[in-house]
C-alpha cells in the first residue's frame, strides 16, 4: 500500500521535475561547463580551467556594474519596501476611505510590462518635450537632466519602484489579513493603540512575507536589464554596454560573440545572487531566535 502510494507520489512530481531539470539544471550545468573553455582564432576551443573566472574577478567593467547594481539595491529596495509596508498597514488599519480603489490603483503598475514602463518614463523624463521638463519650464526652473550621468540611477530606481511597490504592498497586505484576530484582541486588552499594535503585533507577524519580498528584490536588482537596456537608446553616453552585469553578459554573448566568458559572467552573477540571498535569510532567521 505504502509502496504504491510512493509510486503515485513520484508520478505527480515527475512532470515538474523533468521540466525543472531540462530548463534549469541543464542550462546551469552547461553554463558552468562552457565557462571552463576559451575560443581562440588559432587552435579552436581549449580548456582553460578557471581562467575565465580569474578574468571576471579582475574585470573592471564587470566589477563596476556589480557595484552599480549594489548601489541601486541599497537605494531602491528600502524605499520600495518601506512604501509597500506603509501602504499595506494603512489599508489594513481600516481607516481609509476608498481603500479598495487605492489598493487596486497602487497595484496596477505591476501589470504593466517593464518595457512599456521604461518607454513611458523615458518619455516623461525627456529633457526637451517631457511633461516634467515642461512643468519645470512653466515654473521658470531649470529642467533637471533626469537622463544625465548623475540622476540616471535614481531615474531607473524610480521606474522599478513605480512598477513593484504595489506588488510588495499586496504581498504584505495579504499576510496582514491572515494575522489571527486573537492577536489584535490581546493587544487591545493590553491597551495598545493603532501605532503600537502596528509596531508590536503586525510588523513581527509580517516577518516571513517581508523576507520573501526582500529576497525577490535582491534577485530583481542584481539582474537588472530591461529598464537600462531601453534607456540606453535615450542616453547612450550614460548607459554603456556594462552598465549592469546582465547588460554586460548580453553584450559579451551577442555583440562580442564571447560565449565562454559570457557564461562565466552569468554563472558568477547567479552564484552571487544565491549567496547574497542565503546570507540575508540566515541573518534574518538568526535574529528571530535570540
Amino acid at each position, binding site marked *: 500500500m505504502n509502496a504504491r502510494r510512493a509510486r503515485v507520489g513520484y508520478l505527480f512530481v515527475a512532470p515538474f521535475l523533468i521540466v525543472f531539470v531540462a530548463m534549469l539544471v541543464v542550462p546551469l550545468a552547461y553554463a558552468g561547463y562552457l565557462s571552463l573553455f576559451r575560443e581562440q582564432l588559432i587552435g579552436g576551443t581549449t580548456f582553460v580551467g578557471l581562467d575565465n573566472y580569474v578574468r571576471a574577478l579582475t574585470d573592471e567593467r564587470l566589477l563596476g556594474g556589480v557595484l552599480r547594481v549594489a548601489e541601486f539595491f541599497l537605494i531602491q529596495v528600502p524605499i520600495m519596501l518601506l512604501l509597500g509596508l506603509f501602504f499595506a498597514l494603512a489599508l489594513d488599519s481600516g481607516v481609509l476611505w476608498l481603500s479598495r480603489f487605492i489598493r487596486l490603483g497602487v497595484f496596477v503598475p505591476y501589470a*504593466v510590462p517593464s518595457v512599456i514602463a521604461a518607454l513611458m518614463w523615458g518619455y516623461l523624463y525627456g529633457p526637451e518635450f517631457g511633461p516634467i521638463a515642461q512643468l519645470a519650464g512653466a515654473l521658470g526652473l531649470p529642467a533637471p537632466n533626469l537622463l544625465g550621468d548623475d540622476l540616471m540611477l535614481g531615474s531607473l530606481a524610480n521606474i522599478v519602484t513605480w512598477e513593484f511597490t504595489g506588488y510588495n504592498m499586496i504581498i504584505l497586505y495579504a499576510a496582514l489579513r*491572515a494575522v489571527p484576530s486573537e492577536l489584535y484582541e490581546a493587544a487591545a486588552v493590553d491597551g495598545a493603540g493603532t501605532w503600537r499594535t502596528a509596531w508590536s503585533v503586525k510588523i513581527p507577524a509580517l516577518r516571513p512575507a517581508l523576507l520573501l519580498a526582500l529576497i525577490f528584490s535582491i534577485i530583481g536588482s542584481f539582474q537588472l536589464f530591461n529598464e537600462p537596456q531601453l534607456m540606453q537608446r535615450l542616453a547612450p553616453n550614460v548607459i554603456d554596454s556594462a552598465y549592469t552585469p546582465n547588460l554586460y553578459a548580453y553584450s559579451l554573448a551577442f555583440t562580442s560573440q564571447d560565449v565562454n566568458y559570457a557564461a562565466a559572467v552569468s554563472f558568477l552573477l547567479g552564484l552571487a545572487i544565491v549567496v547574497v540571498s542565503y546570507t540575508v535569510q540566515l541573518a534574518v532567521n538568526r535574529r528571530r531566535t535570540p
Partner: protein
Amino acid sequence: MTSGRIRRRSPVLTLAMLAFLVYFLLPLFWLVVASTKTTGDLFGSFGLWFADDFSLPENLRRLFTEQDAVYGRWLLNTAIYALVSAGGAALLAALGGYGFAKFPFRGNKALFGMVLGAIMVPSTALAIPTYLIFAQVGLVNTPWAIILPSLVNPFGLYLMRVYAQEAVPDSLLEAARIDGAGEFRIFRQVVLRLLAPGFVTVLLFTLVATWNNYFLPLIMLNNPSLYPVTVGLANWAASASAGGGAAGDVLPLVVTGSLLSIIPLVAAFLMLQRYWQNGLAAGSVKQ
C-alpha cells in the same frame, strides 16, 4: 469582531494615500492622453492634457494596418506564449505541489529542498546558456524557445505545496480512496477544485511574467513575425528615437500600442482579484 472597536476614518491618511495614488496613476494617464495625439502634438502640446486634434481612431487604424498589420500579430503571439506558459506552469506546479504535500515518498524533502533553492537562481543567468542549447537543437526562433523555459516556476511549486497542505484534508482523500477512486481521478475531481485559488495565483503571476518577458524573446527570436509585443514595441521605439524621417511616423504607434497591450492584463487582475489575493495570503504567511 470585538464589539467595542469602532474605526474612525482618517481624512489625513486618505489624502496622503490619494497623493501617492496620483504618482502611480499619472504615467498611465499620460499614456491615455498621448495615445490620442499626433506626432506633432506629442512634442508640441502639454504632455498631461489632450491636444486639439483627437487622433486616437487614426492611431488605432494605423496600428492595425501599417507594416503588414504586424502589431496584431505581436499581440496574438504574446497571448499564445503567455497563456500556454501560464497554463502549463500552473498545471505542473499543482501536480507537483500536491505530490510533495501529500505523498511521503523517499527523497521528498531533498527534492523539494532542491527546488526551493532554485527560487533564487535568476532567470536571466539561465537565458544565455538556454539560448546556446536551443541553438544546437534548432529551437531558437520558434515559439517553444519562449514557452519551454517559462514552464518552470519554482516559487509556484512552493506556493502550491503550501496551499495543498492547507486546503486538502487527508480525511477527504482517504474517503475518496475507500470509495475506490483512482489517484488521478481524485486529483482531477476533488483536489484541483480545492486548489483553485492557488492555481489561479500561479496562473496569473506566470501570465504576467511571460506577458512582460523581454530578455528571453529578445535573445531567442529574430523573426519579427514571432515577436511578442514587448520586443516589437521596443524595436519600434528604437527606430522612432533613431531618427524620425527614415523610420516613418512610428511614435504614435508605440504609444497607442503600449496602451492597448496593457489592457488585457489589467483586466485579468481586476476580474480575478478574489482568487489571487487569497492565493497569495497562503504563500506569504507560511515559511
